[in-house]
């Protein structure tokens, strides 16, 4: 009989290997899936792991996908560490793109870099404001932040629809629900001429560094850690539980809003109802696979982007269905969670003869 026993101490080597193991399991299951679908497993794997990084343009596309995932993932890992379950990052993303559009619509051809800076700040502000609704309702009203933040996503979607159908509709756009195409002075500066990659990726990496400093080196970060691990200990030490709620929510809202601003003024160049692409939800996986740590989240955002782009390529080049990306992401998450539990528990084989009053 197999029994699971908690370990005295978490196994360090397993803790390190767990994400790699999870990835390996996912890849193995994926190969199985490809074979079942009658496709060449090797070219499928190539779509996912080689094509997205094989040349400069592919890397540029990867950076465009990874930037919002990284930004939002950083914020979410801060939240989840503090036991604040912010599921509504998508809504904060949308509000960020809306606020950024508000600034972008005021651009003139002569506007300088100040406009882009204002645009990005506005985006962060919008996201933070939206997150603060969740924060205040949890703080004052005790309402579950999971449900409130999620409902606010639906509300944000409708707000977006209202704006592009009404007040912000392009008057020369034949009444299609979209804003004008932003002037070039309101677009995010490109990294290299001719490439789609923009400075957003630099902002994202800077944010990752800042988060790492905050989490590992600052006192405030330490307070959040404790609050997340043991609210009782935090209270005893006098750490404000209120700030342990507000800080992560505001920061993750700001980061998600910044991602929204980068998206609408970057690859999109106008506000439509198609700007939100589900990054707010994908970033949940990114945060977990990244172990809620900035460096890990940086790597997992790259990995997730490879999954996304690989899924797209497999569809167009190999005829694989698009939903395979969702399956892989889910599998990865589940494998990670399963592997992780073996860090805390170990398998033991007990002879079935021993039937003591084992606490079940």
């Amino acid at each position, binding site marked *: 009989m197999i029994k699971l026993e908690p370990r005295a101490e978490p196994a360090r080597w397993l803790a390190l290997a767990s994400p790699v193991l999870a990835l390996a399991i996912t890849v193995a299951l994926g190969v199985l899936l490809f074979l079942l679908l009658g496709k060449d497993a090797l070219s499928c794997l190539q779509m996912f792991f080689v094509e997205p990084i094989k040349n*400069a343009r592919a890397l540029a596309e990867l950076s465009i996908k990874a930037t919002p995932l990284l930004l939002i993932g950083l914020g979410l890992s801060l939240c989840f560490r503090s036991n604040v379950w912010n599921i509504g990052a998508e809504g904060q993303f949308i509000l960020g793109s809306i606020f950024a559009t508000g600034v972008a619509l005021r651009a003139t051809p002569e506007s300088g870099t100040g406009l882009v800076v204002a645009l990005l700040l506005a985006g962060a502000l919008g996201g933070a404001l939206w997150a603060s609704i969740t924060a205040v309702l949890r703080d004052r009203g005790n309402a579950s932040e999971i449900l409130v933040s999620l409902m606010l996503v639906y509300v944000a979607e409708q707000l977006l629809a209202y704006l592009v159908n009404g007040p912000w509709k392009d008057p020369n756009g034949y*009444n299609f629900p979209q804003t004008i195409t932003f002037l070039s002075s309101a677009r995010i500066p490109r990294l290299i001429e001719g490439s*789609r990659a923009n400075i957003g990726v630099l902002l994202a990496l800077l944010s990752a560094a800042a988060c790492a400093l905050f989490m590992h080196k600052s006192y405030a970060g330490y307070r959040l850690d404790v609050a997340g691990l043991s609210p009782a200990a935090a209270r005893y030490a006098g750490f404000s539980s209120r700030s342990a709620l507000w800080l992560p929510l505001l920061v993750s809202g700001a980061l998600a809003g910044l991602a929204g601003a980068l998206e609408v003024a970057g690859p999109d160049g106008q506000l439509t109802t*198609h*700007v939100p692409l589900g990054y707010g939800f994908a970033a949940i996986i990114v945060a977990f696979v990244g172990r809620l740590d900035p*460096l890990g989240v940086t790597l997992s955002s790259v990995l997730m982007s490879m999954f996304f782009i690989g899924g797209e390529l497999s569809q167009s080049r*190999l005829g694989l269905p698009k939903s395979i990306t969702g399956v892989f992401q889910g599998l990865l998450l589940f494998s990670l969670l399963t592997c992780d539990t073996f860090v805390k528990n170990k398998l033991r084989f007990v002879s079935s003869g021993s039937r003591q009053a084992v606490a079940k």
Partner: protein
Amino acid sequence: MPRLLDRPLNPRSSASLLALAVFSFAACDKKPSGNSAPVSSAAAPAAQPAEVKAAPGPLKIAFAYVGPVGDAGWTFAHDKARKEAEAEFAGKVKTSFVENVPEAADAERVIRDMVDQGNTLIFGTTFGYMEPMLKVASDHPNVHFEHATGYKTAPNLRTYDSRTYEGAYLAGVVAGAMTKSKTLGVVGSIPIPEVIRNIDSFTLGAQSVTPDVKTKVVWVGKWFDPPKEGEAAQALLDQGADVLMQNTDSSAVLQTAEKAGKFAFGWDSNMVKFGPNAHLASAVINWTPYYKNAIQQALDGSWKTGQTWWGVKDGAIDLVAISDKVPAATKAKIEEIKKGLKDGSFTIWKGSIKDQAGKEVVKDGEKADDKLLLGINFYVKGVEGKLPSSK
């Protein structure tokens, strides 16, 4: 407890392990899968057009779809036409498609990849691909781009569309004849001009038979959301509508009508099997004539930019499978109108047409021009409700 572990693991080690795993896969670089055209390096200053020399061989054509080919609606109609066109030019063309391509940012990547794969004629089948296609088109002047339902063109990008409002008008004529409560219902998707035009044309058609008919509209906000479409249809039925029309892409509206014993129409494709008792007729879009035409032009080099808007006359839209419950007189009227549309003697949008507020938008005896129709943003008299976000 929020954490997956009790102690944060050393991020550096896990990072290096993860990176190792990822890049070990990258290291096994197999030969590129049939990639022909050299990709312009991202570092090039001005966009270097990749010289896509059509290798002697079949013309490669790619289609970008916004939905799944199995939606029995919009995308299904495009894919059906693609298959028929390919059969017509068997051996001379090779078509491929990508479905579920989201509109806006991601579309650009997919379309660029299509160009990379050697496709020289690319169809984008939804409005939201307009800006991405324009960007890619400006980088690849030797590739032909066709954009459905858009309004911006370029030397190598042209637009095409189907006069779906003619199908809506014909359906309206049938609805006007069949309604007992004199209340019609339309389940709308997104308030773009095309949909508003269809609602208006549907109402005009019904009013040509029963002048005091009313149309109620409920908006779902999406093209394809069966449960919501069903609820919207139910709400319309609850409010007294007994004939339903839709501008959404699933058969949920028809099914809801079937459950309630009322009438409805099929949209985009023949939906009779989804509601045999409720089905009055289906407004079916047929892209085959246009696709055959476009491919022929690409093959013989006569492809030119422009804007095409085909209707009943060119076989792009039709009202089919008219039920036997519809009286013979109405069926005859439908045939007459179709004939009139084909030889130009019948115009749907002929004055005097008033909007909801009573203002005359098309003067008596005049015909509305395409510009008015393309940008339409008003309900005609007889349609109840407010246009979303109108002042």
